[in-house]
């Protein structure tokens, strides 16, 4: 058991846990950020996706002791705190979620994709998002949401069309 310092969603926090506790469970059960989800524990489903220094990672695979003290962690709670991110607005506009359980992970992967590649092709979207499973089958709307957000970000407009 040791005390670990974390920088999470812009705040400094500490967690007193065993060295092998995966970051996923530190985030959820110790720090209380429930938005990041458990789905498989073996990096097959992507529900646990967070950002470390802006890069999407599967938090179920990172034992807390292996996390750098300088690492800046962002969870879904840290996205769109002041105003919804274009991805989140697009998700609402396109009505992406059904049960919604996988969507924190989907959004984290999508936000990182657009940061890295503001105008992804369909193939690039699939490659970036393929690690995120959705059993409800919302994949086509996820793709539409990403394209909508990409266009909105590029043109400085809103993903909300109000055309229905």
């Amino acid at each position, binding site marked *: 058991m040791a005390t670990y310092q974390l920088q999470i969603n812009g705040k400094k926090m500490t967690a007193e846990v065993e060295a092998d506790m995966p970051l996923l469970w530190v985030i959820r059960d110790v720090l209380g950020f429930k938005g990041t989800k458990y789905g498989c524990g073996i990096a097959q489903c992507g529900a646990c996706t967070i950002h470390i220094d802006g890069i999407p990672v599967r938090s179920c695979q990172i034992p807390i002791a292996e996390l750098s003290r300088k690492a800046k962690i962002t969870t879904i709670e840290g996205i769109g705190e002041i105003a919804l991110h274009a991805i989140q607005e697009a998700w609402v506009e396109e009505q992406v979620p*059904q049960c919604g359980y996988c969507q924190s992970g989907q959004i984290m992967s999508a936000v990182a994709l657009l940061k890295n590649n503001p105008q992804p092709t369909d193939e690039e979207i699939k490659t970036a998002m393929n690690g995120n499973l959705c059993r409800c089958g919302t994949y086509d709307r996820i793709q539409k949401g990403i394209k909508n957000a990409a266009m909105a970000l590029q043109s400085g407009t809103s993903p909300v069309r109000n055309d229905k």
Partner: protein
Amino acid sequence: MVLGLPKLKGETLSSISKNLPPEFINLEINPFIIIRTDGSITLINPRPDMGQGSMQAAPSLLAEELEVSLYKVTIIQSDGQSKYGSQQSGGSSTVRGLWYPLRKAGAAAKEMLIQVAAIKWATSTDNCFAKDARIYLKNSDKSFSYGELAEEAAKLPVPKNPKLKDPADFTILGKYNKRLDIPSKVTGKAEFGIDIEVPGLVYACIQHSPTIHASIVSVDDSKTLLVKGVQKVIRCKRTMPHKQSDAVAVIASNWWAAQKGRSLLTVKWDDGQLPTTQTTDAYFQRTYDAAKKEGVRYEEKGDFLAKFATSNAKLEAVYETPFLAHAPIEPECAVVHYKEDGTAEIWAHVQGPDGGLADAARFLGIEQDKIKFHVPLLGGSFGRKAYHDYLSEACYLAKELKKPVKVLWTREDDITQGPYRPGMLSRVQGMVSNGKISGFHHHAIGESIVGQVFNGLKPDEADPWLSGELSTENNQYQFPVSKVSWTHVKTEIPIVWWRSVYASNFGWGQECFIDELAHLAGKDPLEARLSILKDERFRKVLETLAEKSNWKEKLPSGKGKGLAIFASFGSISACCITVSTSGKGIIIEKAVSVIDCGHYVNPDNVVAQTHGNIVMGISAAIKDGITFSNGKCDQTNYHEYQILRMNEIPEMEVHIIQSGAEPGGVGEPGLPPVAPALGNAIFAATGIRLRKLPIDITSIS
């Protein structure tokens, strides 16, 4: 600007009352509608939301007739009490089951409010109308808010036959509306079963028997107890409907420690005969043996066997579907607090709080009215969470520990322990004559949910759930002679309903074999079906599908289209899939689905559900199923039990028929025609007729 976002985190009816200053009164106009004197309105959603949109659909029925905006009310999940009636989400029954009851509840409340206003204005009720949570006096500027009228209205008798709106006047039902639950699902704020925390909670990770039904011989927990956070190791029971089995629970102060502790347990199990008897090979062997014999008759029109014997244009075949796991991304979880005063409080993502309450009362040995039941959001379910074994474990441990306890299943538990959609066989026989399909016999073979789950199937009785789906009453095919029969082949492997239940198994056999007969008759599969379908709704679905999928299009060699139509859960759905061959096998290019679900609440949600059904239907058709060897499940997690990923979905289109018929289901009917449409498309493209699922599309050339 969205007002009055539904309280999705922890708000209950009792907490609404507790948080109110005394001058506000909650007036229950009927169980589903609560209007406060300050004008705020709460609607009760009696059907848990597992992604299918009931959180909005059911309240929409109330809101339409009550003349309130969904975006200006608070929506609360019901808690299982009998005053809310049936609260089971499943069978695609929410909208069609509640279409009249909830609309009547809304209309009755509106009439009661109008009555009070009419008295206050000393006028007749005909001079009053309701709009946007106010009652107005015609030809005047007078109005009352519902809050001002509620106290008097709550004293009135409830009208037994309130007038319902004409669908032509609907402002909510049948219209595009943004779903109320979506905003919280894009910010991580939505609360699912797995997210529940209560003060003093302990966590349980349960070691189940790898062969599911084995009994414990010994437990060595010496290493487990050394894990920091682990508090104790106790034996418990997993209660399934048909069997109770031994299990060992590791209890810890945090779930990671419980899970780690479980990995260090050494349990010796007595598997008995299970390694030999509980295998999918043994089960399917029994089903193939049964396919050689006649089954129990469910329905017969004319003398099928006699006509078949003398026909010189006939076919017979056996179609096979595998066991499947639901594998919702959120695994099974329940929090139970059995208190010192003999009452209990439960948070469990079941598909129905009434069923959950009844089972919990049994598991805990207390009366239902001693239990407070909360249903958080379900992170997917598809039928799985309506099977309350995980709840039984939490109840068992709650009684033992006398502390609130959270049982959380790992993904490995979810995949290896079931329950599963059963694998089934269709033994089909058919004939053609004068260019038409002239006879069809569907002999369904396999385990029965009514039998295993409810112990309700007599030996000489055809399973009622699936037989109804295969009947000519259901498929409307005008076969001159036909037969539906059934053989019960049992398995110890636990089974349960999976999305679209038996329709997911038997759509494959029915619609692929209709195609085989069509080809035998020398007819196009669309024409062959139309020539034996009189029902206008079935014909319209097929004709619409043909138009939207450009069925008549001449395709280059190596490309093919296949279609299928299946009626289930009160709706009719058809699917056309286009495939092409490539160096790497088959590519599924496009799926076009048509659904006639009668009246619907939200067209966008009908499309979304049908998209989901296409994806899940393709997953079921081309990904490995669940297999059991040596008594154990061979698959353990998503790397071995694969489900479709984003790069595997085809282009999809969904078309909704505007039939204006009585509402039919939406959550499931889109799934059954998907696999047979694919099988028929592969035949069209390659000439290869496949009869066993899953199809390995990479290996077909």
